[in-house]
């Protein structure tokens, strides 16, 4: 790098001299979720030709309801991936918490709110357990959560004794999030609204608070963050605890959505949440991404599955399409990262 000419090449690149390709690269570098937003608009456009019912308020509302659960889990997953971590146990935590809520209410006769609080505590505690293993025992997040995924799944089956608790057995409190809010022709459920509110709060915290900045710094370069005086273990711990809390809240959304609490549901949530985050433009290497991208990512997966179904495409093509989406998203991320150097 030329030392005498410190007049920044990079700054010049952003102003006039940049080629169109560099401009796109720089834009995506700054706003990584833009490419996923473009994909979403494009997908909506294409699928509207596949079936005339696709772009109806009814169907769009359905997509949002189908997306809400993955979107909620992906919110917690985003926090973790921003710190260059990963959580393979997120779905298992949510299902575990949902069984705790449903069973203490139905079998032990706890009032709904108390059962709910216990479920939240259990989910948050599970996240804290992951965080403890990662920050205090110094194990890699991948290994920790692969292990706890199995542990939490087994605990769920053991605790639930294989029994699903059906809607008639559940208090109205638990089914509340499945109720629609009439919004013209749209039928947004309270669950969807809760997920959107959750995203708003997280987006604010990540963008405008010191905590959010530290989350990015830890994921960006953990040693630099430590040397800059950030208490990196405390930040990591806070992220895993917050994520556990989010997964526990998601269990409420799950019960509302399927109108039941089943120990065998949600096996795809673990990987699907990672899919949503990656498609939403957050880098698996940490430190880069925006939380709303993950919501867009979750909606994209929902739109693809719904649109392809309505177009009469077989399930395995849908799975294939999601796979292509993931690989494309990661390739774009790699390309964007080059813009920084």
């Amino acid at each position, binding site marked *: 790098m030329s*030392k005498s000419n410190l007049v*920044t090449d990079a700054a010049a690149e952003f102003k006039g001299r940049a080629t169109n390709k560099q401009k796109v690269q720089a834009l995506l570098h700054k706003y990584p979720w833009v490419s996923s937003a473009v994909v979403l608009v494009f997908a909506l456009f294409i699928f509207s030709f596949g079936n005339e019912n696709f772009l109806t308020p009814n169907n769009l509302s359905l997509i949002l309801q189908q997306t809400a659960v993955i979107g909620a889990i992906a919110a917690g997953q985003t926090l973790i991936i921003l710190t260059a971590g990963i959580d393979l146990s997120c779905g298992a935590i949510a299902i575990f918490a949902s069984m705790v809520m449903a069973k203490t209410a139905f079998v032990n006769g706890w009032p709904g709110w108390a059962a709910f609080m216990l479920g939240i505590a259990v989910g948050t505690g599970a996240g804290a357990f992951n965080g403890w293993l990662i920050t205090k025992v110094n194990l890699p997040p991948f290994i920790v959560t692969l292990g706890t995924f199995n542990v939490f799944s087994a605990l769920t089956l053991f605790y639930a004794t294989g029994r699903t608790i059906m809607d008639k057995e559940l208090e109205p409190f638990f089914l509340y999030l499945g109720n629609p809010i009439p919004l013209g022709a749209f039928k947004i459920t309270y669950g969807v609204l809760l997920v959107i509110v959750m995203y708003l709060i997280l987006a604010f915290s990540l963008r405008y*608070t010191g905590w959010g*900045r530290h989350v990015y710094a830890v994921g960006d*370069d953990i040693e630099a963050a430590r040397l*800059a*005086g950030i208490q990196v273990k405390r930040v990591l711990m806070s992220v895993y605890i917050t994520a556990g809390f989010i997964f526990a809240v998601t269990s409420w959304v799950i019960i509302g959505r399927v109108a039941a609490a089943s120990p065998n549901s949600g096996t795809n949530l673990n990987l699907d949440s990672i899919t949503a985050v990656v498609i939403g433009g957050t880098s698996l290497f940490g430190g*880069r991404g925006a939380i709303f991208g993950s919501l867009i990512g979750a909606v994209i997966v929902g739109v693809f599955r719904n649109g392809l179904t309505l177009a009469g495409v077989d399930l395995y093509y849908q799975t294939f399409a999601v796979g292509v989406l993931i690989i494309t998203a990661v390739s774009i991320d790699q390309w964007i990262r080059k813009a920084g150097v």
Partner: protein
Amino acid sequence: MSNSVAPVLEAKNLVKNYGRVVAIDGADLQLFPGEILAVVGDNGAGKSTMIKCLSGAETPDGGVMELDGKPITFRRQKDSRDAGIETVYQTLAVSPALDIAANLYLGREIRKKGPLGSIFRMLDNSGMKKSAKEHITSLGIGTIQNMSQAVETLSGGQRQAVSVARAAAFGQKVIIMDEPTAALGVRESGQVLKLIQSLREKGLAVILISHNMPQVFEVADRIHIQRLGKRVAVVTPKSHTMNEVVAVMTGALTLEEKDQTLGPIR
């Protein structure tokens, strides 16, 4: 001169091992108020490790450290900051994806005034940008214009300037710089040396680790020579020549205690 001036920062018999590697092996260091202490030594002499212990980035396995005569134990880097010590690490410790202003205030962000700050914990980004700009400009490396620029878009020298500006902006008592001019050109190195001298004028004590002998002889009041994890001599630019310092560094020459300048010089 008399020894009536007490050291602002002192380390006695510091030891730090990384597994089987002995990085520092009973190192001593004395830094007096208002002086520039150069620390020189071959690669691997344990200079960086020593200053990491002094700034709380590493916990020493043995030895004591004192600030203003009082014993200190830093559990984390932030403890040294709170005690008034700022450090420019050899690796710079900047976060690439964050912008310049965010890096300058990393770990000590300022919140907005009023309920937005106290209840919603919102950061005062515009305020931080404004004063970041002042700090960077006062460093005299004026080629950095836009405080919203991500640090990864900067050249190596500019990144170094950000790290130096950060230490200079917040240092209260002691500023430690580990090879702060390594990536800088002649003119920018000159700016940093000028900055170091102006910090001394403000009464701060500076530890400057450098391989550049002419630079060391230009600004240092005393020169701490480290070899194989230990302090082997302390001299001044007046008492010894560059060749002698290099000879001590490499072990070709050993100095008697009476030939050294262990105490303060002014």
